[in-house]
Each structure stands twice: as C-alpha cells, then as structure tokens.
C-alpha cells in the first residue's frame, strides 16, 4: 500500500466514487424529466419577484457571490464551494435578468471569482440575445481577500444608487451585519444565505429572506428553468438521507451495543 494511504483514505475514495455514480444517474433522470417536487424556498421566490419588478422599475438588482476567496487560504475549505454556489446563482440570476431586461449590478471580493463572473454574465447576456446590454462596468471587483473591506464596498454601492433588491449568497461572517443592517435601514429587500454559523444569525436578524446552510447550494437549481440543473437536488437529497440513516443507525447501535456485547463503533 502506498505511503499515506490507509483504510480511511480508501473509504473516502469509495464514497467519492459512489457520489460520482449518483451524480451521473441523477443527471440522466433530470434529462428525462423525472424530478421530484421541490419544497418552496420563500427567499428565492422573493429574488424571482425582484428580478421581475426590476424590469419595470428600471432599478438594478445587486448580486454578490460572497466575501470568501477561492482556495483554502482563508483557513476554511468550505468557503470556496460557498463562493462557487454564489457564482452559479449570480450567473443564473443574470441569465433571467438578461431575458427580462433587468439591470444588474454585480460585486465580488475575489479576483478569480471576478474574472469568472465577468465571463459567465457576459455569456448569459449573449445567450439571451442581449449581448449589447452587457456592461463590463456593472461587474465590479471591490477588494480581494478582505471581508471587511468588501462589505463596506457593498454599503457604498447601496448608497450610490437605488436598488430593487440585493442577493448575497456565499461566505459571510460577522462582517455581514454592516451591510445587512445598512440595507435594511435603506429598505432594500435582501436575499441572503451562508453556511457560516457566525453569519447566519445576523442574516436572520436583518432579513426574513435567508437561505440556511445547504439551501445556498440548491439555489441555482431553483432558479434554473431546465431540468439538468435540478439533478444536484436529487444527489444532495440522497446523500443527506444516507447520512441521516447512518446517524440514526449509529445511535441505535450505540444504545444496544453494551447490552448485546457487540463491538464498539470505530473511533468511539
């Protein structure tokens, strides 16, 4: 066995292989239109409504993929995937905005995400046949790897022009309070979400349209009109069910284990 490879590593690779199989399977199901009904997410309904209203009022909708950076340089590995979830939602929202003629304003706090956003949003406008409406100046890089500077930059955007709504999904911590409360005081409807236990309570205080934890990963699928994007929901549901079954099974096993003389669970 190569050095560094142990049972845990093999188990991890097996789990990854199973997950890859599930992703392919669910993608095929989604292409055939076999999608399970989704429970409503009121926060995303609010975003959809704001995108529709903005087409009539002419006020821009602000989109933000969060203040985290790609890579683990912030010390939190999940922050990168939060940023990816925010990028996907921003591009999906931009696609809807391009179809509706809704003006958007996009901000980012990471240079690599900024480059990805510019490309993705330009493509969204091109696919909607509205390439002439895409303005690169509307996709703004506010800072890099500085969450506090990023939220102060967003508050500046709030003060510069009237906004129909602001959607901020991604990596936010306690610094969110600065922008969340400023937006609430200005009466800007905000749709927010994060997986951070530090940022979530502050988000719930400032706006009722909050996506909690894993809901941010489902947000793009909710906004997407086509079936394949919803395959991720199927995969997440199956994996979540598997984890719940394992947790309950582990609990029951640990309760009966001393009475039946069974071996203890590894690691316990």
């Amino acid at each position, binding site marked *: 066995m190569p050095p560094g490879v142990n049972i845990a590593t093999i188990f991890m690779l097996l789990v990854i292989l199973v997950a890859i199989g599930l992703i392919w399977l669910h993608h095929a199901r989604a292409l055939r239109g076999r999608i399970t009904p989704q429970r409503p997410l009121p926060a995303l309904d609010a975003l959809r409504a704001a995108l529709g209203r903005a087409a009539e009022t002419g006020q821009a909708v602000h989109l933000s993929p969060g203040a985290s950076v790609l890579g683990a340089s912030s010390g939190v590995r999940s922050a990168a995937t939060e940023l990816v979830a925010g990028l996907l939602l921003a591009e999906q929202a931009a696609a809807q905005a391009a179809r509706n003629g809704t003006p958007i304003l996009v901000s980012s706090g990471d*240079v690599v995400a*900024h480059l990805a956003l510019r490309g993705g949003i330009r493509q969204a406008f091109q696919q909607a046949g509205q390439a002439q409406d895409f303005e690169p100046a509307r996709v703004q890089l506010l800072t890099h790897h500085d969450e506090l500077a990023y939220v102060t930059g967003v508050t500046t955007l709030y003060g510069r022009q009237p906004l129909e709504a602001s959607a901020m999904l991604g990596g936010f911590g306690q610094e969110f309070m600065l922008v969340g409360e400023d937006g609430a005081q200005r009466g800007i409807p905000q749709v927010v979400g994060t997986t951070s236990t530090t940022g979530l309570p502050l988000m*719930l205080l400032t706006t009722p349209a909050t996506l909690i*934890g894993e809901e941010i990963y489902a947000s793009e699928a909710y906004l997407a009109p086509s079936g394949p994007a919803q395959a991720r929901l199927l995969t997440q549901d199956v994996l979540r069910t598997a984890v719940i079954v394992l947790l309950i099974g582990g609990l029951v096993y640990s309760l009966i284990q001393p009475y039946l003389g069974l071996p203890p669970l590894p690691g316990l």
Partner: protein
Amino acid sequence: MSLFRDPKRLLAVLIAGVAGLIVLLDFAGAGGPLAALASVLVEWAAVITAVGLLLGVLSVSGAHLQRVRARSADWPYSLILIAGLLVMIVAGIFFPLPGRAGIVLPGSLAEVPIRTVFRALYEPIAGSLLALLAFFSLSAALRALGRGSAEAVVIVVVAVLVLVAQLPPVTALPGVGATLQWFNDYVALAGARGLVIGAAIGAFVAGLRVLLGFDTPYLDR
C-alpha cells in the same frame, strides 16, 4: 449543446477535471509523481491568482479613475482610494530600505514600511468598523423584534439570556453554569453540527459537479 460536440468546452472541462482529480488523489495520499504534479498545479494556481490580482488592480484603478474624470457622485472617495492604492504599492514594493550593500527594496509584506501603514491606517479603521457591529446588532435586533419574525425573536431572546447569564452575579448562582454548558454541549452543538453536515454535503456535491464538468463557473464560453 452536448459536451462532445463543443470541443472548446470539452477541452476546458477536461483540463479542470484532470487538474482537480490530480490534486484530489494527492490529498488522498497517492504520493509519487502525482504529488509532484499536484504541487506544480497548486503553484500554478497561485501564479494565476497573482496575475488575476494584477488584472483586478488595473480594473479597480480604471473604474475609479473613470469616476474621477467624469466627476461622478462621491468622486473624491475614488481619489482617496487611488491614493491609498498608490501608497500601499510604494510602501510594499518601492520603498527604499537601508541594507548591507546600500539601498534595498522591500522583500516581503512583513517589512517595516507596509507594516507601519497597516498599523497606522488599516487596523484603526478595521477596529472602528468592527466596533460598529455592536450597535448594528442592537439596531437589527430591535428591528427584528418589531417585524415579529419567529426565528429572529428566538435569536434575540437566546442572545439576551446568554448575555445575562455571563454577568458575574448570575454566573455565581448554583446550576446556571452547568445548565448553560449543557445547552452549549448538546443543543447548540447538535444544531451547529447539523448545519455543518448539510453544508458539507452541499459543498461535496458542488465540488464533484465542478470536477465532472456539470457545473462550469470557470468557463467563459
């Protein structure tokens, strides 16, 4: 359009997928040539980020110079931002320092000039902004109570109880500390773990979908 009928997209997905797979296998402990390759890829990522940072600086400078030129609203702040940018670049890269062989340029971000600027300007400003959090939290809590949102009311009530429980006379009461610890160890920790597990599953699926090319947020098609 199918991935196999779009060679540009297929090439980009293959590059991203293979690169991600190599780094993943190295993380799993594959070792050998894969470890060396993964190390090279990570270094390339750092270089690409640095180049992206340069593009970002040019983008930000251009946008704010445009605002100054056009005398847009709040253009003096754009001027201050550009001045701050120049000060940091000079302090971090071009500030002459005494060295053994004469004048040398700063070799890292830990050098005195940039540390001085950070300590004198950035840290007080950041500290002031963080200090505002307390007042913003109070304002948000009052607004949330007025809104009557169930989650917000629960958060505010729990926060007030925890704050009161931290007071020395209350902490000295019998059972308070143990009760709080029990809530922390079982109720709060269970909720936090549930949140983290759900988020981890979402992150896991999101990462795999990017590796497999189902989601391509990096692609400028």
